[in-house]
């Protein structure tokens, strides 16, 4: 590794200045202003370690996996499978075979719907989703429901964008699957996964946890969690685009039919039919994202070297600071959706500057080199529940600090003043 040294230790305070050195994109200026990147909930930036691990792999060890007998191919296969083992260890999986590489979290959820769902859901059945879900955990189920004719029930949300679990037992009663987000990408609200999983288990339902927003920011142990399926994306956790993860309990994967068909997922093919391979290969048709897996493993190494506990502590402290700062500077002119208690949420702030549409807010913020995201954040049912067409979302990661929160507050004040009626 030729780049700057990794920050080490699970210290209480992150050395953000040292971390920022590893993220070249953050060093740039926009019209003389320091770039303030607050859009990691959509996709994070990545450290030099990740890009270098990928280029080193491409330059020294790249070949297609699982096919060649020559040494470079063997090396590529080993590195690829090591990456799978790294992911498995990082999320506390029972074995690497429980980790399926996909294109992204969206494909991972579609895989569960298209494989497990297609064989297990039909007329008379029900599944449970929540109002907090990203479209990635809604539309695949709606598509399947339209085809197979099962019921979709919804866990409602509270006014502050948390799940309302008061009717949980009734909702999960008789359901075959409960699929829910571990952390809202709109309100940052961390859901009561243990409670939902316990209720689902008691009702005999399987659980799918869309962990896209939590795996990058919170320590994760899928075995301890007790879920059946967990999905997330590499690009939100310092890794490359083009790779996502489905983790599922081994017995479930064993029993599931293939999702996509093609090379790499079979044991045998004749003119009469095919024999599918064992998991995880069964679910990885075609050439997988090979260098992306290497990059994701490097991202995990980086996250672990900083420490997931330390990252979480840093984000809670920074979120608390930002909540205070924004309410001091903007008072009643700003609504921040989501739980007011920093420990109950991730570093995702959905902002509503009264009288100014999120799109206009983001435009003014861009003039201040503050990068946030306006829109519905692919969660239209939640936006409808919150009664807003769009929010301006600012999100934090390990490379953000209080200077970023201050810049956000200052730019929001400028936006308010610019549009002042």
């Amino acid at each position: 590794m030729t780049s700057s040294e990794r920050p080490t230790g699970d210290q209480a305070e992150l050395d953000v200045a040292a971390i920022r050195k590893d993220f070249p994109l953050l060093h740039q200026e926009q019209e003389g202003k320091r770039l303030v990147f607050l859009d990691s909930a959509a996709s994070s930036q990545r450290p030099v370690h990740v890009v270098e691990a990928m280029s080193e792999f491409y330059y020294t060890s790249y070949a297609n996996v699982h096919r060649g007998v020559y040494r470079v191919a063997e090396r590529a296969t080993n590195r690829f499978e090591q990456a799978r083992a790294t992911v498995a260890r990082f999320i506390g999986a029972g074995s690497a075979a429980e980790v399926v590489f996909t294109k992204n979290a969206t494909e991972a959820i579609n895989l569960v719907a298209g494989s497990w769902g297609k064989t297990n859901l039909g007329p008379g059945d029900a599944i449970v989703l929540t109002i907090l879900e990203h479209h990635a955990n809604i539309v695949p189920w709606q598509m399947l429901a339209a085809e197979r004719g099962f019921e979709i029930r919804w866990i409602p949300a509270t006014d502050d964008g948390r799940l309302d679990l008061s009717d949980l037992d009734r909702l999960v009663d008789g359901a075959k699957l409960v699929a829910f987000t571990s952390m809202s990408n709109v309100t940052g609200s961390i859901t009561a996964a243990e409670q939902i999983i316990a209720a689902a288990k008691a009702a005999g339902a399987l659980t799918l946890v869309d962990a896209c927003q939590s795996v990058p920011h919170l320590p994760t142990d899928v075995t301890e969690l007790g879920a059946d399926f967990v999905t997330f994306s590499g690009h939100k956790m310092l890794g490359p685009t083009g790779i996502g993860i489905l983790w599922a309990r081994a017995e479930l994967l064993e029993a599931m039919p293939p999702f996509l068909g093609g090379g790499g997922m079979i044991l045998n093919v004749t003119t009469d039919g095919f024999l599918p391979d064992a998991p995880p290969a069964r679910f990885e048709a075609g050439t997988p994202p090979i260098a992306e897996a290497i990059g994701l493993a490097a991202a995990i190494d980086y996250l672990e070297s900083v420490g997931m506990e330390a990252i979480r502590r840093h984000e809670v402290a920074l979120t608390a600071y930002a909540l205070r700062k924004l309410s001091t500077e903007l008072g009643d002119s700003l609504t921040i959706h989501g739980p007011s208690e920093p420990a109950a949420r991730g570093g995702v702030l959905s902002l509503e500057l009264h009288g100014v549409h999120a799109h206009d807010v983001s435009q003014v913020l861009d003039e201040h080199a503050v990068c946030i995201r306006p829109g519905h954040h692919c969660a239209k049912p939640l936006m409808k529940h919150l009664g807003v067409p769009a929010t301006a979302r600012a999100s934090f990661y390990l490379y953000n600090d209080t200077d970023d929160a201050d810049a956000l507050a200052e730019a929001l004040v400028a936006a308010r003043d610019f549009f002042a009626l």
Partner: protein
Amino acid sequence: MSGLEDLYREIILDHYRNPRNRGELESPPAHRAEGFNPLCGDEIVLHVLLDDDGVIDDIKIGGQGCSISQSSASMMSAAVKGKTIEEARNLTATFKAMMSIHETEIGGDGSEAEADEPVTADLPLGDLEALRGVVKFPVRIKCATLSWNTLSQAFDELAAEATG
């Protein structure tokens, strides 16, 4: 903030704060059309009432959106009221030509690349000229054209109803 002042001209902010022809019409007889900007969640609900000669007798705008989409819708409603469908279509073509020139230069995403459509009109745009600054902010072009696309959609739906 000179760039911003170029985008948010006073007249745009005026239409945003005091939108013209806001509301709904009874449908039928008015025709209702809905447009979405999936990017930012903006929605336009348009009601158009035509008289027997195909003249836009009344038009009302509902929905929510940013200052650019809302002011564009407001200005559009004022501009097309009292015009025939053909005149309104020509005005649409003129407006979209103003929006598209720069879009093709930056190699826009194609979905609105209608610059090579035979532009049948170069009508005076009046207040709408104020939206010219939007072309410098490519992601906002979709906001500016949302109501116009919805109007075209309404006309297409009306034409389909008439023939079908």
